[in-house]
Structure formats: structure tokens, C-alpha cells
């Protein structure tokens, strides 16, 4: 497989873009023209070749650049990666899950050799060759969760299961859609979802929690979530909001196509074997309105979704200020024609 990892940025000059192939595989999350809240959890099983769910962990053309961006965020703010002391077993579980999955799915880039507790990990794109003892933190240059997530796209949190609840007791968040790991760490499932409108009243979280408490080993699940981000900025954290908030006022009818990005999160959940914890991965994908409109079906559908979105949800997602501009920009593709079934492009 010949995938070129691009040198690109997610801040300042924003040189990020998607290749035509990356646009085709973009996980467009809407399967109908009208917005509907749904939990949409499904088994995380192998998807079509080339899709973002072909493998359990998706590595794409932005891999190397995203890992550079993560290192920059952590350098400025180490609180983005934290783990309460009782989560160390779950951290090692995560190391195993990610290393085995990455090595199995992408043998051309990653390899893992195991001899009992003696592990040898090679990451060719990042030029890492590491021998270490599984279970011995002294043999890695970072704590286990931080070590492996500095080499894997997406944010991660580790959820401890106790008292019939899930507790977000460890995680790394450098590409998050406006939530603070530092503030939310230690919270249970109901608590960290507190700011989400509507869903509590609908009993959505009670049902989702009950489902996840019984999540089984070897049977991971996934769902898609989405929001919109101005500029291809990965780090839209509350911590940095003073820095990126102004972006939202700089959208114009002319530049909306380049500036406004649909941000889709592929969320995966796995039961971990030694710790009985759950890993919750949040893998973000960005595509500008212009990139999405290379499939007119997506442009028409997104504009219809934005029109039917309740104000409270738009507010929660931070879209209020630029929603009309996005709809206006997309209107050039709105010819009133129907869209084909399913999420895929034209």
C-alpha cells in the first residue's frame, strides 16, 4: 500500500487538506436529509476495503502530521494527558490493543514481536524502534497510555467500571471538540455528558450506559458523532478557546467553503481484558465544505441537515454564528433533487 504521509499543519497557516481518495472515504455521518438525534451504536466489525472501518484502528494520510500536532499540544499543556493511579493496568491493556491492531492491519508500517513480556515495537513512519518489558513502566520513555497514543491518531479515554457506572479515569485529548479532559477526568458517564442538551431527558444516556456496562470482550462497538470546526484545527479545546473563538467570526459567504469544516468523530469502544475497563476512542476526521461538495449529494444533504437542526443543538455544537453562512454557501448545490439512500458519496 503506497500511502504518502503529508507534512501539513492544523494551526497557524493551516496547510491541511484531503486528497481525493481521503474525501471519498470520509465518514459522512448523515443517512437522511433531516436531522435526527440517534445513539446509532453498531458492532465495530470489519467494513469495506479502503473505508475508515476497514480496520479496528484507522491510520490515514494525516498520520505523521497529526502526531506532530499532538506532540506540540502536549508540550504546551501536559494536562491533556492524564491518568489516575489505579488505571495503570488499563493503560497496559491499551498498549496491547493498539500495538497488536496496528501491526496486524498495517504490517508495512508497524511491527510487534513478542517473547513473553519482552516486546519489540517498530513504527516506521515515526522512526521508532522500541524494546520494552510489558508491564514495566520503567522500560518506556513515557507512561504506557501516553507512549502509544503519541503514535496513534485519535483521542482516547479509559473508562473504569464500578458501581454500575463508567468512570473516565484516564485519557488523552489533544484533538477534542470543546471538552476538557482535565476538568472531566474522574467523572462518571452521566456526569461527563452533563452539558449535552435533550439527551438526558430522552433517557439516551441511561440506555447507552446499560448497554456499555455489558460490553463484551472481543465484541467492540462504534458510533459516529459530528460537529463543525472553523479552519482545519484539531485542538478546539476549552483551554485554547480564547485563541480559536475568534475563528467563528471570520467566516464570510465567500470563504465558508474553505473555512468551515465538518468534523466527524468515529467513536469506538472496546472491553479491555486485564483491567475490565473500557477504552473509548474518538477519532476525528475533518473535511471542508468545498471538499465535501465534490460529492453534490453530500452538499445537498448537509445543507438540509443544517436547516433542520434544532437551535439548542446548534448552540451546543457552537454552530449558531456561522450556520446561515454555511447554508448559504452550500445553497449553490441545492437544486431540490432527492438524495440517494445511505451515507456514501455520489
Amino acid at each position, binding site marked *: 500500500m503506497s500511502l504518502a504521509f503529508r507534512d501539513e499543519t492544523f494551526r497557524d497557516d493551516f496547510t491541511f487538506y484531503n486528497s481525493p481518495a481521503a474525501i471519498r472515504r470520509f465518514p459522512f455521518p448523515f443517512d437522511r436529509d433531516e436531522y435526527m438525534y440517534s445513539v446509532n451504536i453498531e458492532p465495530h466489525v470489519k467494513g469495506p476495503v479502503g473505508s475508515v472501518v476497514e480496520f479496528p484502528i484507522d491510520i490515514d494520510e494525516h498520520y505523521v502530521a497529526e502526531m506532530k500536532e499532538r506532540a506540540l499540544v502536549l508540550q504546551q499543556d501536559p494536562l491533556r494527558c492524564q491518568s489516575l493511579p489505579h488505571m495503570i493496568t488499563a493503560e497496559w491493556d491499551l498498549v496491547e490493543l493498539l500495538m497488536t491492531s496496528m501491526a496486524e492491519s498495517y504490517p508495512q508500517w508497524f511491527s510487534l514481536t513478542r517473547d513473553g513480556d519482552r516486546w519489540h515495537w517498530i513504527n516506521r513512519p515515526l522512526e521508532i524502534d522500541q524494546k520494552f518489558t510489558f508491564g514495566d513502566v520503567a522500560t518506556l520513555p513515557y507512561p504506557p497510555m501516553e507512549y502509544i497514543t503519541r503514535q496513534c491518531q485519535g483521542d482516547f479515554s479509559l473508562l473504569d467500571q464500578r458501581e454500575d457506572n463508567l468512570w473516565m479515569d484516564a485519557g488523552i485529548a489533544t484533538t477534542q471538540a470543546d471538552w476538557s479532559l482535565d*476538568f472531566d477526568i474522574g467523572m462518571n458517564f452521566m456526569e461527563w455528558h452533563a452539558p449535552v442538551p435533550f439527551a438526558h431527558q430522552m433517557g439516551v*444516556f441511561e440506555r447507552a450506559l446499560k448497554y456499555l456496562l455489558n460490553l463484551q470482550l472481543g465484541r467492540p462497538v462504534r458510533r459516529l458523532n459530528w460537529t463543525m470546526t472553523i479552519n482545519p484545527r484539531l485542538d478546539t479545546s476549552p483551554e485554547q478557546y480564547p485563541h480559536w*473563538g475568534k475563528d467563528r467570526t471570520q467566516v464570510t459567504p465567500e470563504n465558508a467553503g474553505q473555512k468551515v469544516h465538518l468534523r466527524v468523530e468515529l467513536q469506538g469502544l472496546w472491553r479491555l481484558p486485564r483491567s475490565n475497563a473500557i477504552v473509548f476512542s474518538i477519532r476525528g476526521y475533518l473535511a471542508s465544505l468545498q471538499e465535501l461538495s465534490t460529492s453534490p449529494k453530500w452538499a445537498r444533504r448537509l445543507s438540509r441537515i443544517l436547516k433542520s437542526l434544532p437551535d439548542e443543538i446548534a448552540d451546543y455544537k457552537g454552530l449558531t454564528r456561522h450556520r446561515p453562512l454555511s447554508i448559504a454557501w452550500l445553497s449553490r448545490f441545492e437544486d431540490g433533487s432527492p438524495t440517494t439512500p445511505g451515507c456514501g458519496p455520489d
Partner: protein
Amino acid sequence: MPTIPPSPYKSRPVYTGLSWVAGARRHLIAAEGEGALAALDLLAAADADIKSRTTLLYTPGGSKPQGHGAKLAALLPGEAHEFPSIETLLFRLNVELTRANMSTRLYTTGTEGFLGRVVALAQSHGINPMSVVTEHRGSLARRVQCVHCKGFIEGVTTSIVPCSHCGISLFVRDHYSRRLGAFQGVIVDAEVPGDVPAAEEAYP
């Protein structure tokens, strides 16, 4: 007396009110300010046996003129200890918890910021936060953490407050962290700098 209205936000702790946990061999009460009134109610409902197993730590805060301390001391001779500040009370509570065992139960009452700090200290001793018996009394003032510089601001009574550390104008969200014992404060004028709405007296 102001009471906390039921919050639609699920990260907000629920303070269920003080009542004795039957059977515990030792009872530790940490009270602040008007929390003395809740402690007095609790002690009024106790028999001699319970009182003989109880230790109370009290700091009067803004309620000093009311003289609750003397009433508490009269109900628990020798085992009602008064402290000049929250810090000095927590220092002593830390020592008491070091000597405590699983048959010790902890009760705390006072303002929300105080409750949060007592529960956080208890947690550092391995106590499950849900097992601390809590009752809110006194001001609704909030302890707020600035999400940007991570500084804490005590006794916040308004919906918008300038961070006492970095100066940013913060909106106080109804999002509470038990670990930090604080509400989240987020910049209010990030999108249009200087566009700061008037602060309302929201948490008197």
C-alpha cells in the same frame, strides 16, 4: 435561607442531608459556617451512645457572630473542635482520617465549596465520595476553576466573574468536577473580545 434548586445538569452533586449511619463505630463531622445548624439538628437526634462515638470539627467562617460553636461544644463536651479557617480544619481532618477505619463514617455540611474540599480530601484517603453524608447550608457561592489558566476562584456569587489569576472574564457553567471541587469557568468573550454581558447575582 437560600437553597440549591434541583439542577438539570447531572454533574452537579446531590446533597441529600445529614442523618446518622446506623452501626458505625465512629462518626466524624466536618461543619462550616451555617452548617453548624445542620450539625446541631443531627446531634439533637442522637442518643448518648452515638454522641460518645462522635468527633466534630467546626470552622465558623462568616457565622462567627451567631455563636454556634458554643452550642456545639455544649452538646459534645471535649469532642467539638473549633478552627479559625477551612485550611486549619482540613489539616486536622486529614489527621483524623489517617487514623480512621471502615467503621468510621464522615459527615459534612456548609457551603458548596467547603463540601467539595472535604469530599476531595476524603477521596484521597480511599473513601468513596458517594459514601460521605452531605448537607448544603449557607451561601450558594461557588468555587470556580478557570479552564484556561487552571486557577481557582473562591466564593463566586455572579454568573460572570473575572479570573483572579489571569483576568479573563469567565462564564460559570453548571458543570461540576468532584475531583476539583469546583465549577467550570469558560471565557465569555472569546468570539468577540470585549463583548462581556453584565454579571448577574446568580448564586447569593
